[in-house]
């Protein structure tokens, strides 16, 4: 009975189709979820660049090196001195903030009132300088880095999210919202936003622009350290980890250089882009394409919207 056979074959193939559909969905959700978690860490890096850019109009190219510095400072407190995590973290972040403040005082402050391009180029030099210093102090080998945070991995059927990326996402998001709260709900945040707009005006109304820049650089350095610690927790820490800092560039350019919401969106977009490319395109034989994909996306976005997706629409008075 050929007809019946055909029928049963049809049923089987429908079942297969359903199964593979389910598999596809799971893959997609898994990729999206992982992308968002990593993306949140990128968002935090992006935020740090955005607040520095808004306050001093300089693009901090040394973000990767700030990240490694912060991670090593935490490493000293947690692994070398064996402080408990809840004490080592604030100490490490405070040390990172102090490092940021010192760097700002030595390199950025003398340039206040000068061209922002000069500051940006200083940060390029800083990147090499800090990397060399770190290599001198810590050497080029990898340090194993494992935080032993409580296991919160989610294992829902086919989906599996590991504990480390989840923690990274949570910590990044938390830090992000603390910074937002500080910026938009406190007196100091208001002063920072005012100074971001115009240093001369802020000074004329009694806001010490130098002090504000110091605070912004210190805060940004501490937040970059949070991102650094979380990224180091995925594997190991070495002076070469600073490469990850480059990811912040597509994040802020896609989101918009001066937009805080843009940094959040940009980070998630870059994270998802990386993860989708890793799941679907790399298996086709394009190994390493994951690393370039965000930059290709960046090119496309910047061609269409030069200010980035969420860059401020300048107030024009007509």
């Amino acid at each position, binding site marked *: 009975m050929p007809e019946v056979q055909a029928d049963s074959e049809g049923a089987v193939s429908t079942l297969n189709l359903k199964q593979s559909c389910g598999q596809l969905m799971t893959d997609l959700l898994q990729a999206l979820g992982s992308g968002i978690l990593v993306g949140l860490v990128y968002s935090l890096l992006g935020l740090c660049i955005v607040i520095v850019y808004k306050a001093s109009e300089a693009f901090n190219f040394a973000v990767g090196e700030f990240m490694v510095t912060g991670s090593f400072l935490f490493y000293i407190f947690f692994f070398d001195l064996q402080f408990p995590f809840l004490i080592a973290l604030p100490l490490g972040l405070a040390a990172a903030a102090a490092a940021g403040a010192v760097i700002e005082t030595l390199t950025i402050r003398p340039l206040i009132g000068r061209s922002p391009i000069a500051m940006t180029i200083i940060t390029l030099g800083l990147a090499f300088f800090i990397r060399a210093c770190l290599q001198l102090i810590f050497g080029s080998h990898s340090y194993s880095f494992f935080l032993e945070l409580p296991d919160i991995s989610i294992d829902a059927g086919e989906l599996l999210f590991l504990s480390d990326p989840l923690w990274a996402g949570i910590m990044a998001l938390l830090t992000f919202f603390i910074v937002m709260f500080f910026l938009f709900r406190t007196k100091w945040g208001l002063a920072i936003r*005012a100074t971001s707009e115009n240093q001369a005006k802020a000074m*004329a109304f009694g806001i010490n622009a130098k002090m504000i820049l110091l605070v912004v650089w210190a805060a940004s350095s501490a937040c970059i350290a949070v991102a650094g610690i979380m990224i180091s927790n995925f594997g190991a820490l070495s002076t070469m980890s600073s490469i990850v800092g480059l990811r912040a560039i597509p994040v802020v350019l896609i989101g918009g250089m001066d937009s805080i919401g843009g940094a959040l969106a940009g980070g998630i977009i870059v994270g998802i882009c990386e993860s989708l490319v890793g799941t679907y395109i790399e298996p086709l034989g394009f190994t390493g394409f994951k690393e370039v994909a965000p930059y290709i996306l960046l090119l496309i976005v910047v061609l269409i919207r030069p200010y980035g997706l969420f860059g401020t629409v300048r107030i024009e008075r007509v």
Partner: protein
Amino acid sequence: MLAVENLRVVYHDVISVLNGISISLEKGELLVIIGANGAGKTTLLRTVAGMIDFYDGEIIEGDITLDGLSIKGVDTVGIMKHHGLTYVMEDRPVFWYLTIDENLRAAAFSGRGRNVKADMEKAYQYFPPLRGLAKKKAGYASGGEQQMLAIAMALMTQPGILLLDEPSLGLAPLITEGLFAIIKRLNESGISVMLVEQNASAALEIGSRGYVMELGRIVLEGKASELAANKDVREFYLGSGEKARRSYRDAKRYKRRKRWL
């Protein structure tokens, strides 16, 4: 109370803008400084307010004293906090991307332990139109509203001396008139005002005393009413010289100008 003595200021080490200028501001006075573009009026205010470093300028001679104390070299925030001197920059120095409300709060940043709410209420009383705009971004306010906001922000710093740099810039005559009336009221409430203006007639009308600046020097000084009646001021700044004979005297005009210097 405020005295500038023989002040010389140079930008970028080469451009000499103030060439030995001396002025004084008495307590409770409304002092008017008029002068053409490039006379150095803005530079004078920047220097007094301690902002000249920011613009890469340098005081190479002279002194600025407030109640006998030298404030040369003190930064803007220090001058504001300890000497109660607030400088309202030209071209409506408000923060465009903050709301009117946030602008006022930002200006109150330097004052610790003050009642910000009460100060804001006072500022809104002087400038009632701002009250309705409290939640609006300052960049979208009109020019007149922005200038009101700038002065309201200065009030938030509780100034004893107010330096106003061309508040009438780009405003319609009627708006300017209203604004100057408020400046006069502020002065009557006890704030000493130093008003730099291009709009000489409006400024001399409310001022008590005035200076005329040219090329970084004071060329004329006197009571506001005297200045307003002065022939040279009338011709060069008020634009109401004897027009009929103007063409004949054009040649001499340059000569007379030169005599001032």
